[in-house]
Structures are given as structure tokens and as C-alpha cells.
């Protein structure tokens, strides 16, 4: 707390300095104008040159934990690119890409990702990394869920005891996972004890802390926010022996250039390639916060991992699961792609 107060004073000081420098100028507006025009000019210059831009729509968990600050500069240097990162919830990030306003997405909700692939908006999905979710709550644990081995049982107990539960309620990956667990528990959460707040993970942890409530958090954000809240992990995720339902895999999906010809598809593929390359995977593996590794890379595998490219349970109907060897698929390619006068 003492450190935070010092930071706060420091910040107030910086604010005062900035404010004062505004006062001393005869008028700070044209000045600010000039600066921005200058930087705007250099931006145009650079995008007109070799530097390409990549718009990445991603989840707040990869952004707020600082992981992308470790990954993106390396990619930018290597590919002479500049990344515009838009941190949103998984639902919002997928929606942004569905509208063609992003080149690539890095998200964590397999169900929603599969839908995105099935609608044809995404191509070449790759697994990137994973961690897990944990159920956190006040140390005195009024519902008594500590150490339960089933997330569904823990949620059912919270519902039975009507203990306050704070939900993200924002269609994020974490929110989708939470709803999945409620479904597994056979509970439709409703009533005064269940509060959907529509905020990010950090806000949600703070609000749960302030109101003595339980919530579901990804482990990464919980670890990164730990200093600011008094919540404790009451049900562990699969990384520490907890139930597998709390798994949290991340995937990268470039946007289909056939749907949106203006997306930077080659650079999006390069980004997916970088994240899943030995170099990118090592950066992910080495990234820590508060002394803990936050994400575990899982892209590298000597054996084929076909499941990552297609929606879960995908089959082309011919029973062999691989579209390339299907005669029907080949005939369709011929019909669509070969000119009639060939």
C-alpha cells in the first residue's frame, strides 16, 4: 500500500508538471496540434515505406498481463511491422474481426472461435498457449467451497448458499467459460446474489474483493492483480490439479482474405507463424509476473495436431475427417476453380 501511495503522489506530481507546462505556454492548443501533425506526418511516411501495419484484436487477458508487450516488439523488429493492438473481450474481438476491422485475432473461447471458423471469417487457426481458470473468493469462504475438486459442485454450492457471485457479464472468454460451468452445475444463476457487471477482469476482481464475493478469473490476470485484491484461490484449475473444465486455451486466427480483401493477410499469417514458432513460444514460456509463469506454449509438436485447424468434432461428412482426400471436395474444387473452356 505504501508503495502505491508513493506512486500516486508521483503521478500527481507529473500531472502538476504537465498542467504547469500548459499554463506557461501562451496557448497550449496550437502547440499540441503541431506536435501531433508532425508525428502524423512521420506515420504516413513510414506506412508508405516498408513498414506494414497489423491490426490485432485480442482479449484483455493477453494485453493486461503484459504478455503482448514482450511478444509484439520482437515481431515488429523482425518483420518491419507495426502492430495496432485492440484489447477487448473475446466476444468483442471476434465481432471486430467478423466486421473485417482486424487482420488477426488472439482469443480464448474455443466455442466462439469454432463458430467464427464455421462462418468462414477465420482461416488457419493455430493453438498458441494455455493456462487455466481459478475460482476465487474471500478468505473466510462463506459458502465453504475451498478445496472442492469439481468446479460444477463449487458453483452449485455458491448458488445453494446464495453467496454473492460477481460475473463479468461481458461475453468475454472468461464469461463464456463461467456460463459453461453454470451449465455443468445445472444451475441457471439468478437472484440478488448473482451480479453481472459488464466489466474487465481486473475491475471484476476488485469489485468481488470489495463486496466479499466469488468470481471466476483466468489465472494470469489473478496473479497480475494479486497485489491489489485480498481474494484467494479456493478452487484450483487444472494446472494445479484442479478440474479440466477450467482449462483455458488460446488460439490465433487470421481473418479470411476472401471475405475481406483489404485485410493484411500475409502479415496476419506471419504473426500466427511468429507466435507458434520456437522463438515466439520461448518468449511466452519465459514470461512471468510476480514470479509465476502466466502462459504455457503448446504450438510446437512433432506429431500432427489436426484438431487445432478445424472446429471441434469437425468432419466433412465422408467419414474420413480430411477434406483434401475427399472425392466430393475435389470435384467441387474442379467445378468452382477450373474455367469451362480449359
Amino acid at each position, binding site marked *: 500500500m505504501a508503495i502505491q501511495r508513493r506512486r500516486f503522489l508521483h503521478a500527481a506530481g507529473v500531472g502538476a508538471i*504537465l498542467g504547469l507546462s500548459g499554463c506557461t505556454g501562451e496557448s497550449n492548443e496550437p502547440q499540441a496540434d503541431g506536435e501531433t501533425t508532425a508525428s502524423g506526418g512521420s506515420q504516413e511516411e513510414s506506412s508508405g515505406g516498408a513498414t506494414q501495419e497489423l491490426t490485432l484484436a485480442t482479449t484483455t487477458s493477453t494485453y493486461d498481463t503484459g504478455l503482448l508487450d514482450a511478444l509484439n516488439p520482437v515481431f515488429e523488429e523482425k518483420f518491419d511491422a507495426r502492430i495496432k493492438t485492440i484489447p477487448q473481450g473475446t466476444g468483442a474481438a471476434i465481432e471486430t474481426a467478423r466486421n*473485417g476491422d482486424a487482420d488477426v485475432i488472439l482469443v480464448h473461447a474455443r466455442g466462439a472461435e469454432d463458430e467464427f471458423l464455421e462462418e468462414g471469417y477465420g482461416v488457419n487457426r493455430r493453438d498458441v498457449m494455455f493456462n487455466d481458470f481459478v475460482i476465487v473468493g474471500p478468505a473466510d469462504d462463506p459458502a465453504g467451497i475451498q478445496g472442492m475438486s469439481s468446479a460444477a459442485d463449487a458453483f452449485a454450492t455458491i448458488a445453494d448458499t446464495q453467496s454473492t457471485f460477481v460475473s463479468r457479464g461481458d461475453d468475454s472468454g472468461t464469461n463464456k467459460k463461467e456460463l459453461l460451468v453454470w451449465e455443468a452445475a445445472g444451475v441457471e444463476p439468478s437472484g440478488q446474489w448473482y451480479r453481472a457487471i459488464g466489466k474487465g477482469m481486473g475491475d471484476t476482481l476488485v469489485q468481488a474483493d470489495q463486496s466479499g464475493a466469488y468470481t471466476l478469473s483466468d489465472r494470469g490476470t489473478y496473479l497480475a492483480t494479486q497485489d491489489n485484491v485480498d481474494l484467494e484461490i479456493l478452487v484450483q484449475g487444472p494446472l494445479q490439479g484442479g478440474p479440466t473444465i477450467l482449462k483455458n486455451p488460446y488460439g490465433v486466427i487470421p481473418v479470411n482474405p476472401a471475405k475481406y480483401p483489404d485485410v493484411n493477410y500475409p502479415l496476419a499469417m506471419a504473426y500466427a507463424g511468429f507466435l507458434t514458432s520456437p522463438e515466439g513460444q520461448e518468449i511466452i514460456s519465459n514470461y512471468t509476473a510476480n514470479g509465476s509463469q502466466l502462459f504455457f506454449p503448446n504450438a510446437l509438436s512433432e506429431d500432427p495436431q489436426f484438431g487445432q485447424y478445424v472446429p471441434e468434432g469437425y468432419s466433412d461428412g465422408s467419414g474420413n475427417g480430411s477434406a483434401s482426400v475427399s472425392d466430393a471436395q475435389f470435384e467441387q474444387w474442379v467445378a468452382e476453380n477450373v474455367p469451362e473452356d480449359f
Partner: protein
Amino acid sequence: MFGLGDLNLTYLVSITVVSLYVSTVAVLLSAAIGLPVALTVGFRDFRGKSIVTSIISTGMGFPSVVVGLVVLLMLSRSGPLGELELLFTPEAMIISQTILALPVLVSVSLSAVQSVPQDLRDAAFATGGTSVDVALLVVREARYGIVTALLAAYGRAISEVGSVLIVGGNIVFSDSTSFTRTLTTAITVEARKGNIETGIALGAILLALVLTVNALGARFRDRNSAGGNR
């Protein structure tokens, strides 16, 4: 250097510059559009005038998130203006802030313009002034209220967070320079991370900026009106 958690000086300065740039351009644009509208509506008598003024003042209460969503739909690649590729740029933020600032500016300056006595305009016409001369005279007479309108519009624009978050995308480059992150959207990031103190510190910077702009505006306004009375 100026450590504030992981916020460095480059970051603080560039989000401040983006805030100032976007809001200043938005207010200047809405002044360029809004003042002629206020003058026209203020001086003409036409049927439905009271409805028009009601609509304008309703715009002051327009939720910024809704404006953000509408601008998003317009500028998205799948929207009608998608080819301009303006989404997630400062220009997109200027568009949404202009839409938000315009009703405030028109509404407040309209009442200032309407308070200029009819006699004065009649006299100006009588002494051979063109309508442009008369308009300039009215603007000069109503300058106190018009500066207030500019400041109110500026306050609406720079403190706004809902629409710029949606249409700007809250982008910072990896060298800590802001592209579309403003002071207000930076505060949302800190709030999301649970860094409440840092968020409040950014709020203090924002407040200092608004105070500075208001002080400059008030000085300009008072100096001029004092000169006018002499």
C-alpha cells in the same frame, strides 16, 4: 524515469497529446459547423423553430456510447464508409467527438446569439451593413456566451470515454507512443487492471488540462469583454 507503475513519460505525454489533439480539432470542427447553424436558427423565424431547438438541446444528452456504436457501424469495413479505412484512427475519434460536441456548442451559443437585441441588428442593417457584417457584429456582441459554448463543448469532448474507446480502439504502439489512446481510455485500462491509484492520477492530469483550458478561455473572454465595455 518518471516511473508510475509501468507508465513512462513518453506514454503520459503521448496520451495527453492525443487527448488534446482529438478534442481540439473536434471542437474547432463543431464550431465551424455549429456557429453558422446557431446564427441562422437564432435570427430566422420559421415554423417548427421550437422543435428544432428542442432537438438540438436533446442532442446534449445523447449517450456517447451510442454515438460510438453508430460511428463504428458507419466506418467499419463492412459498413457504408468502410473504404475510407478510418476505423481505429484519431480521425474516427474526431468524428464521434464532433458529433457529441456539436449540440452543446449550438445550444449554448444559440441562447447567446438570441440574447443580442434585435435593435442592434436593425441598426447595423440600417447603416448599410451586409448580412456578413451583421453576423460578425452579433458574434462580437455574443462572444461571452460563445466562448462559454466553446468551453462547454471542449469539456464534453475531452472528458468523454465511451465513443472514443469504441471507434479509436485504445491503441498504443509498442514503443509506448499512443495512437488512439487518450487520458480517459487509459484510465479504463488502469481500472480494468485494478490499478485504482494510477487511474486517479491520470484523472488528476485530465483535470489539470481542463482547468488550464478553462482558465485560458476565461482570460480571453474577460479581457475582451472588459475592452468592449470601455
